[in-house]
C-alpha cells in the first residue's frame, strides 16, 4: 500500500508547496532563512497522531524563539477517511490553538515525495534544508513525560552546530491512507 520513496537522512529535503486550512500556500524556507525546520505528517483520525500532538505543539512553542519553524501535513485520503477532510482539518485548527500551519496534501504527492509512512512521521531539516532527523517524536506515544525527546535532542544538537547523534528512529503510527 505504501507508495513512497524514503527521504534519506543527509539528503536535501524534497520541495514542499501546500495550502493550509485557510488556503494560504506554504513552502519550505529559503536556505539560511530558518535555523531549522520541522515537517511532520499527522492527521485527525489516528490515535497515535492525537496522542503525540500536544508534545509537538509544545515543542513548536518552545523552539519558535530559536528560529525553528514547524509545518504539519495531512495527506490522508479524505474520501475514505472523512475525519481527515479539509473541513475537518479547518475545524480542528479553529477549535485548538495550533502554533503551526496545517497543510493539506490533497494529491498525496508530498507524502510520496517525502516517503511519509505513518502519522506522525517527523522530519527535521537543517538551515540548508537537509534532512537531519527522521522518525518518531519520542519512544512512547503513551507517555507524555517523554516530551518529544528525540525531536528535541535532534533540534538541540542541530542548533548547537553538532551532528545529530540519533538521526533515525522508527516512525510509529497509523499508515498514511493512500487513495485507492
Amino acid at each position, binding site marked *: 500500500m505504501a507508495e513512497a520513496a524514503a527521504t534519506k537522512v543527509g539528503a536535501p529535503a524534497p520541495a514542499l508547496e501546500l495550502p493550509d486550512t485557510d488556503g494560504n500556500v506554504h513552502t519550505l524556507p529559503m536556505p539560511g532563512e530558518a535555523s531549522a525546520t520541522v515537517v511532520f505528517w499527522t492527521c485527525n*483520525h489516528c490515535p*497515535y497522531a*492525537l*496522542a503525540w500532538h500536544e508534545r509537538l505543539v509544545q515543542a513548536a512553542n518552545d523552539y519558535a524563539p530559536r528560529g525553528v519553524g514547524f509545518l504539519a501535513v495531512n495527506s490522508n485520503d479524505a474520501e475514505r*477517511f472523512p475525519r481527515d477532510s479539509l473541513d475537518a482539518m479547518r475545524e480542528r485548527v479553529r477549535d485548538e490553538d495550533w502554533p503551526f500551519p496545517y497543510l493539506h496534501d490533497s494529491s498525496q504527492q508530498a507524502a510520496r515525495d517525502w516517503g511519509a509512512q505513518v502519522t506522525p512521521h517527523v522530519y527535521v531539516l537543517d538551515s540548508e534544508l537537509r534532512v537531519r532527523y527522521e522518525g518518531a517524536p519520542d519512544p512512547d*506515544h503513551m507517555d*507524555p513525560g517523554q516530551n518529544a525527546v528525540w525531536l528535541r535532542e535532534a533540534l538541540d544538537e542541530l542548533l548547537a552546530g553538532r551532528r545529530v547523534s540519533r538521526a533515525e528512529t522508527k516512525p510509529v503510527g497509523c*499508515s498514511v491512507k493512500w487513495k485507492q
Partner: protein
Amino acid sequence: MARGSPTVELLWWEGCPGWERALEIVREEMSALGLDPGAIDVREIRTGEDAEREGFAGSPTIRVGGRDVQPPDGEPIGLTCRVYRLRDGRISPLPDRADVRDTLSKETEGGDD
C-alpha cells in the same frame, strides 16, 4: 462461583499497529479471570464491506458477549483506527486495561445491563 464463558472477539485491521498488544492485554485479563485465553475469536477486517458487516468502528475492536469494551461514541463504521480514551483522560490506540477487565467481569458474571 460457576462462571460462564462469554464470546470474546478482537477485530483488527492492518492499517493500525498495536492490535497484537491489545490481544495480549485481553488474553492476560481472560487468564486472570480464569477464562481460556485461547478462546478469543481474532478476526481481520480487510474491506469496507467487512467493516459494514461487522459494525467495525476501528482497529482494534474488542467485544465481550457482543459488548464493546468502550462503546464507540458515534464513530463511523469503516477501516480506521480506534481512538480510545483511558481512564486518566489520555488518548490511546488501545483500550484501558481496566475497561477490558470490567467488561470481561460483567459478562462472565452474567452481565449487569
